[in-house]
């Protein structure tokens, strides 16, 4: 009897021990990757991982070793390359905490489709990281740069992207599910934000870079890359990027300026915008109506204008409306030029006029280049700031008196 129970208990514990633990891994056995850069090298991929050195970021005693290191290797496929990295890293790469994946421009021009499969398939990866393109350079160079303020460069890029999308507008944070959505949709094209290194890469990858008050090498976020299918075909500049975000209802807060009648400019802060896209048919051909309603504040008054007057305020509103329309048209023109429907106009038409859409679906590219887009903007100035008349006016008057 006792023997039987012993055997029973033993086999029970054997079950626990043999079946369990297979996927457990201690924190000290893993290399936390925060950034991944993918470049093309002939027909092989070069994968560069930015790996954290936790002790240098949050440890009790810091040495002057760096907070991150990059490891890079090549392979026929991404997964192969990622695993081959263990040849150089002492620990296994852990990708769950990935903040950013950067594609080299060369790879992006050739097509990123093949590189994305691993990213979306691997169970270890969450979907909350962003994807970007290294504009005019190799992606691995971006990951090499040490950044001041943020100890983890990938984190700095991630938060820069998010902050600038929230407060400055010409930036687009793209997550992997959204990217795949655009890549597979016949009526929408993908965009990815661009970033590049400003300054010397060699200096940027040493501690020297963060030991100076003004770092000589910086990672900058700029421009939105336009894709056609999975290939990069062109870039939107800052204005056009902003226009793109207005159209896609992705602006939460930004700053812009318009010229006054008198010399000088008036600066407005957009605090709230909402964009509605409407698809129509006009004489059998598609038509899009983009309607932006926007609430703005006056942020700076740099010209002699009395903003207490209602007429002046509505003047400014009109000017802002015009400016908004201009940048949106600029962005639409650029997209037409590149023949890439990055705004998803096709999707809107498909939803709103599904019957007619079937006629255009086959040659949507052509239809898009000839698409009639009507942009409307509705701007309301809400607040004019804590002072009414600019003290600049008084100052000017005093100056004149002296003369």
């Amino acid at each position, binding site marked *: 009897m006792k023997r039987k*129970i012993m055997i029973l208990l033993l086999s029970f514990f054997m079950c626990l021990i043999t*079946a369990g633990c297979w996927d457990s891994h201690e924190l000290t056995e893993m290399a*936390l990757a*925060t950034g991944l850069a993918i470049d093309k090298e002939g027909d092989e991929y070069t994968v560069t991982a930015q790996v954290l050195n*936790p002790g240098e*970021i*949050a440890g009790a005693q810091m040495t002057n070793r760096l907070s991150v290191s990059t490891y890079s290797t090549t392979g026929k496929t991404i997964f192969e390359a990622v695993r081959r990295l263990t040849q150089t890293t002492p620990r296994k790469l852990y990708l769950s905490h990935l*903040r950013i994946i950067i594609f080299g421009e060369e790879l992006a021009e050739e097509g990123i489709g093949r590189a994305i499969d691993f990213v979306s398939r691997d169970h270890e990866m969450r979907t909350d990281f962003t994807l970007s393109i290294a504009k005019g350079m190799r992606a691995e160079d971006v990951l090499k740069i040490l950044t001041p303020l943020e100890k983890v460069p990938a984190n700095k890029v991630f938060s820069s992207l998010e902050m600038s999308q929230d407060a400055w507008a010409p930036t687009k944070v793209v997550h992997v599910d959204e990217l795949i959505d655009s890549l597979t949709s016949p009526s929408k094209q993908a965009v990815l934000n661009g970033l590049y290194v400003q300054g010397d890469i060699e200096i940027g990858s040493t501690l020297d870079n963060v030991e100076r008050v003004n770092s000589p090498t910086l990672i900058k976020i700029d421009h939105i890359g336009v894709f056609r299918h999975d290939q990069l075909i062109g870039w939107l500049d800052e204005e056009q990027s902003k226009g793109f975000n207005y159209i896609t209802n992705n602006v939460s807060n930004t700053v812009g300026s318009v010229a006054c009648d008198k010399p000088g400019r008036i600066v407005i802060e957009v605090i709230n915008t909402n964009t509605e896209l409407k698809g129509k048919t006009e004489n059998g051909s598609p038509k899009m109506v983009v309607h932006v309603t926007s609430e703005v504040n006056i942020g700076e008054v740099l010209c002699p204008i009395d903003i207490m007057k209602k007429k002046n305020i509505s003047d400014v509103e009109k000017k802002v409306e015009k400016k908004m329309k201009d940048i949106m048209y600029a962005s639409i023109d650029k997209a037409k030029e590149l023949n890439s429907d990055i705004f998803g106009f096709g999707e809107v038409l498909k939803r709103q006029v599904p019957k007619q859409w079937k006629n255009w679906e086959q040659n949507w590219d052509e239809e898009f280049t000839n698409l009639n887009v009507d942009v409307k903007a509705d701007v309301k100035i809400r607040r004019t700031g804590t002072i009414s008349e600019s003290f600049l006016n008084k100052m000017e008057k005093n100056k004149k008196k002296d003369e």
Partner: protein
Amino acid sequence: MAKILRRTRKKKKKKIVENISSDYNQPIKQTIEENKTFVNAELGNSFDIVIREFKLGKKNPIKAAVMYTDGLADKDLVHNYVLETLMIDVREAELNQQIANSQDLYNRIKEFSLTGAELTEITTMKAIFNHLLSGDTIVLLDGFTNGFGVGSRGWQDRGVQEPSSEQVVRGPKDAFTETIRTNTALIRRRIKDTNLWFDTQKIGKRTKTDIAVAYIKGVASDDIVSEVKERLQKIDIDSILESGYIEELIQDETYTPFPLMYHTERPDAICAGLLEGRVAILVDGTPFVLLVPALFIDFFQSSEDYYQRSDISSLLRLLRFFAFFLAMITPSAYIALTTFHQEMIPTPLLISIAAQREGVPFPALVEALMMEATFEILREAGIRMPRAVGSAISIVGTLILGQSAVEAGIVSPAMVIVVSLTAISSFVLPHYNIAISVRMIRFCFMILAAIFGLYGIILGLIIMVLHLASLRSFGIPYLSPMAPMGIKDQKDALIRLPLWMQSRRPTYLNKQDKIRANTKEPKPTRQ
């Protein structure tokens, strides 16, 4: 599991035999001399037995003897109400020879002379020993096979003091003592109801411990009362030294980490239990009184809950449940998250945990087990050690084990935080025995977490809930009023609603006298 264990237990039961050299049931002997010899022989001439012989009456005096146990009997009482009346008063009240030789003398002494309040006639040697060893005084007369037992119990006891284990800020500060009589008085003082009944018996072949089953007739369910009495009757043991003996001998299920009987040293808690329809078991010699049936939620309730505002009491109860889970799960969750589910930890937190674990030579499980074991050792040391070395232990515990272990890189600071959190959480629970359960279960969860990760923890929780649902305390499901669900009983379960809302006694306990209050919401009578 329990069944297997039970089966393996050897079934041979040995009957406890009282070590009796002579026949206790024999009647009292005729002469004082014989009785004295017998008692002395039986008690081995123990020096705490006092036998005083004297003569009764003026003319034709007859021999008499008074026996008592020194230390158990109140000497003043023996002197003033037994010896003095028998030796002086009886002598002065002239004894007629005619009467003296007959049964009348015996009756006279019983009716006029012995002025003690408790008086029992005794006829056997067994009764003599029972009374003598309980502190009563025995009066024997020469030529009579009947004697008297005069209640004279009075020994040194601790007196009513503050409870040491369940402190309250607001509420009565008295606690039960080691004397059952004091304890019954403490209950009787609070419930002046004719239906408060005490049912007494002696358990323990050698200790002959007084056990009282207290309940309110009509409020307590008859089933439960008779169940308690039956279970007590089945006890066959030589000694009962603490109520823990009773608890272990009559509880529903031995193989469970959860307490199935409630014990407390607070009279107010016992009274509240009695008024809800529970049954209390008082044991002489311990301040801890048992209360049955005991349900899972009872261990999360403090008697103070009813003395404070209901809103704060409700919040505190929820906090206790939260603390219960913290105390049980925290180390295992830490293990599971750091070894299996790193993706679930926010990146900055993971970095800082990783930084701390950098250089720690042990896997998370070993680290956690080590720290938890250390804490358990410290806690045990803290309870058992002499007061004088207390400060030394706390210095060693906090400084050396906490700080130095971290500085030496043996454990990570995060682990120290986890262990402290568990420790503090387990102290939040108002009853020590549920905290003990948590202590044991915690280790199982840690091992499960190390093997299966979060799946293991969930698995463990499911097993635990199944086990809890299978338990019963004196016929009442342990998880009542959650499972089976009693909507009305939710007024005093996880939360406590104001007293005027609780007009009914718990439905899972009461079948007969259900209404306990009929008060409306208090409002000013005049505006």
